[in-house]
């Protein structure tokens, strides 16, 4: 590069502004969450989460500057190396990690503790993008092209599972979105959604009734399909699908009782019926709903929340930060947060679509998918639409690892996007 340009040239300001808005709203709410009227709490005191978060925000800004300075080709060229480094860290955490809340998933570098699992999303995104950047690879036609992708996801997934951090692993489901965009047949995500629906139905109703209902529906399909579509040959396929579905219904039962750990089973059951365990796991969900619900239309006002102070909502400044928003800023505040996220994700999809290289597009979709999944699960759990899975709300939740990893993830894409005008001319 012969001429000096400001590193911010061509950076998409819409995304940057949403990002800054999220950070600021998040920080203010972390302060509200740790605020204790009986002890003088300062926003800038590094002994509480709000002060620490400010420090994390500052360091994230430094990281962003670094990302914008580094040549954009670096990320594509070194994507597999970055992936290897993260895998190494994940292996290391199994042996040298420190134990926090039953998950052995933190590595200490001097005073700083990091959670390598948070960075696995970045590593997988880069690796998948790099792999798919080969134009010979097609997800529409060739099944064997899927194997490397499965491998790229499975290795870190397994390592994370070993360190007992199931929540971070579930995030990998978000890669279905990018695969769908790159040509994965539509019936695969459809099956996924049907499976999830079946799972919930199985837990709510008696399984023999469901089996009977499936048989009845299959019978109707077999009887009506030739009449309606004048096509034949659907008989065996329909029977097969019906049998598989009944198998799933009974399999879910087995899975719930024999495979899942007790607390995981509890979290799913509580989603369906919070009153089933109001003292235990249901407690979190009830408290979280009370906090958000009591906010009303305009909220109780900054620092005026009562439910979210002290012990009522657990994990106040991390996973349940949205409760503070809901309680103190009401429907207006909550809606702003939801709209901010949807705007951010949609903008990312638009940016991804205008990329000229496949690497950049795939990576953009990865970023959008990951942020979307976190948003969906985290807010969903606080309003009782999703099971309680401990994953942070991007840019809002307290925590250095999560803030860093999301910032890096996002700004690598913005850097690549900023170089878009030059990609062709450089050949």
């Amino acid at each position, binding site marked *: 590069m012969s001429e000096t340009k400001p590193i911010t040239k061509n950076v998409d300001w819409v995304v940057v502004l949403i990002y800054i808005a999220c950070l600021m709203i998040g920080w203010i709410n972390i302060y509200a969450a740790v605020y204790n009227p*009986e002890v003088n709490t300062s926003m800038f005191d590094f002994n509480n989460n709000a002060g620490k978060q400010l420090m994390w925000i500052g360091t994230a800004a430094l990281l962003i500057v670094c990302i914008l300075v580094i040549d954009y080709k670096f990320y594509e060229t070194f994507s597999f190396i970055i992936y290897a480094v993260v895998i190494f860290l994940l292996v290391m955490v199994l042996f040298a990690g420190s134990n926090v809340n039953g998950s052995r998933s933190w590595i200490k570098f001097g005073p700083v503790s990091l959670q390598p699992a948070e960075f696995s999303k970045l590593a997988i995104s880069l690796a998948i993008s790099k792999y798919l950047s080969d134009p010979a690879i097609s997800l529409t036609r060739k099944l064997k092209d899927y194997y490397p992708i499965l491998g790229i996801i499975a290795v870190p997934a397994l390592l994370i599972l070993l360190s007992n951090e199931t929540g971070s692993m579930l995030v990998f489901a978000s890669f279905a979105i990018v695969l769908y965009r790159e040509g994965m047949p539509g019936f695969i995500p459809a099956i996924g959604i049907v499976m999830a629906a079946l799972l919930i139905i199985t837990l709510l109703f008696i399984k023999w009734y469901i089996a009977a209902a499936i048989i009845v529906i299959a019978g109707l399909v077999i009887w009506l399909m030739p009449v309606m579509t004048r096509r034949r040959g659907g008989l065996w396929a329909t029977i097969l699908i019906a049998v598989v579905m009944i198998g799933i219904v009974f399999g879910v039962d087995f899975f719930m009782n024999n495979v899942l750990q007790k607390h995981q089973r509890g979290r799913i059951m509580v989603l369906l019926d919070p009153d089933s365990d109001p003292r235990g796991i249901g407690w979190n969900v009830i408290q979280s709903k009370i906090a*958000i619900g009591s906010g009303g*239309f305009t909220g109780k006002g900054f620092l005026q929340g*009562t439910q979210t102070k002290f012990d009522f909502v657990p994990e106040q400044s991390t996973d349940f930060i949205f409760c503070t928003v809901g309680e103190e800023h009401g*429907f207006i505040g909550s809606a702003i947060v939801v709209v901010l996220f949807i705007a951010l994700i*949609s903008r990312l*999809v638009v940016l991804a679509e205008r990329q000229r290289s496949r690497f950049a597009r795939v990576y953009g979709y990865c970023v959008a998918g990951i942020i979307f999944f976190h948003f969906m699960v985290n807010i969903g759990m606080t*309003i009782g*639409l999703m099971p309680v899975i401990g994953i942070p709300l991007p840019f809002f939740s307290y925590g250095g690892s999560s803030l860093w990893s999301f910032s890096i993830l996002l700004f690598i894409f913005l850097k690549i996007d900023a170089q878009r005008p030059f990609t062709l001319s450089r050949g």
Partner: protein
Amino acid sequence: MLENRRFVIIGFFALIGLTYLLRLFYLQVLDDSYSIESSSNSIKRVTEIPFRGQIYDRTGKLIVYNTPVYDLLVTPYKARVDDTLRFCQVLGIERSDFDSLMAAASAYSRVKPSLFLRQLSKEDFASIQDIMVDYSGFEFAKSSLRTYTAPTLANTLGYVSEITKTQLEKQEEPYYRQSDYIGQSGIEKIYENELRGKRGTKFVMQNVSGVYKGPWKGGELDTMAVAGENLYSGIDLEVQQYADSLMVNKVGSVVAIEPKTGQIISMVSAPTYDPNILASRYFSKNYAALARNPYKPLFNRPVMASYRPGSTFKLIQALIGLQEGVITPGSGFTHANCPVGCHNHPATGTVALGVMHSCNPYFYNVFRRIIYKNNIKNTFKASAVGLDNWHDQISKFGIGQRLGIDLPSEYKGNLPNKKYYDRFYGEYRWKFSNIYSLSIGEGELLITPLKMANVAAIIANRGYFYTPHVIHGIGDKKKVNPEYLVRHETGVEPHNFEPVIEGMIGAVEGGTARRSRVEGITIAGKTGTSQNKRGDDHSIFIAFAPVEDPKIAIAVFVENAGAGGQAAAPIANLIIEKYLTRKVTNKALEERMMKADLMSKVILPGQKKPLPADTTKKKPVTETKPSAARP
């Protein structure tokens, strides 16, 4: 074609976003069951403090439980006290107390209730409840008081008190609030998270004058307080109290362990105090008195005090010697050419006799052989290598490190190695002749009574131990801390224990501890006499019984009480008999030990002479009734 899929994807995002917006709108705007605070005049949130977990002994008897008491709260701006004199009389307080309490409450908040008087008993509550109706702005809150079945185990259990300002500010997640209680020491501190339970909330309706009108929405939104988890300990309350009575007017420790499990049967730290005095509302007065007491009753001696093990350490020397192969069960040594003195006793031709008569030169020679086993020509280098090898083997007995008992501030003691002496003398500038006093448990060795009891348990088990622990079950399911199920091996083979145990039986039957033998129980024991700079030797005894199937391993330390056989051995053997048979046959010995005042021989650090007898015997404030609770 595939580009069009972006619309499906953005559509999916928008769908989820819309769903969430609708759900939020429903929760926050349409469904009013959550908007409790907006109607706070009629609906009040009451925080329910759960009962703290109770603690049981090994026979199922309660050791610690809770008694309901009542706190009196005042909301200053509502308070109307027209006849202060009568009011003070009813509550049994002085006019000046009234003024200062009111001032403190107003300083905290004029509108929020704050504590006025705490822990009124049920009876007091009943007698003043009717009168208090005349005074607005005062309300009662139910609370509970830690209560102890017996006045024992004060240091082991620890105490609970109001959270301090520093603790309040330093807590990681904001759980505690001002005036909350928290475990401050002992079991109460270590198991705080298990014992405290989970606070609950109730929403109740009230009319304009604050009269209770039933639960709101039928209690649908209430979360119940979850009582703390009960703890199950291996303590035998009867034996514990018996041991207490034997340690009256003495300074020292008793630790008894069940060898097969590592459970603590009894743990005495003498002098002790009645734990009830720190649970009463006179906490600060009583605490200050305990803190000032020169004998330091708040110092948990079994795990924090350190002594030289004296002759009890010879047992370990013998075991290491046998395991290393430098002696055999039939090895004998005489008193010739030995720098350590000894007393008159028959010849010691075997390990068993060496242990039985506690022969100093015998173990001087054993230690010498262990150190010089490596055949290095240079005696300085040989000593260095030998000492480190010895250090590693002794470490396996838990000496020189924390055992990991579930009590705070365990002292790790001192087990010197090469580095330790290098610091004093310089590398390779010291040899066996500088360190031989280790052979008989003197010199730089420091151990705690707990560790010595654990050594007795190791010998009882013939080679292994479980980490000693007070609590073995948490909650109704009696969850066990997995660390307490790990079997720690010492590396000494079982057959090497037999000659040592034979010597220990001899010591009780006809050796240094013969005066306290118990008819019908085979006890294996070893006396120790720990030299110290301050006064008479400390009397030490470790033992286990019955030899055939050990059920109890014990260590007794009595400060400045002379030889091991004089005070420690009789106390230990009486406790063993009490635990195994539930009765004591040698009543004369029992009475003599209970009455013995060995405290008067104790010379405190920095003192030249024992303290005069009556300096510390001030009575603590115990009555829980306000002094003038009459109408």
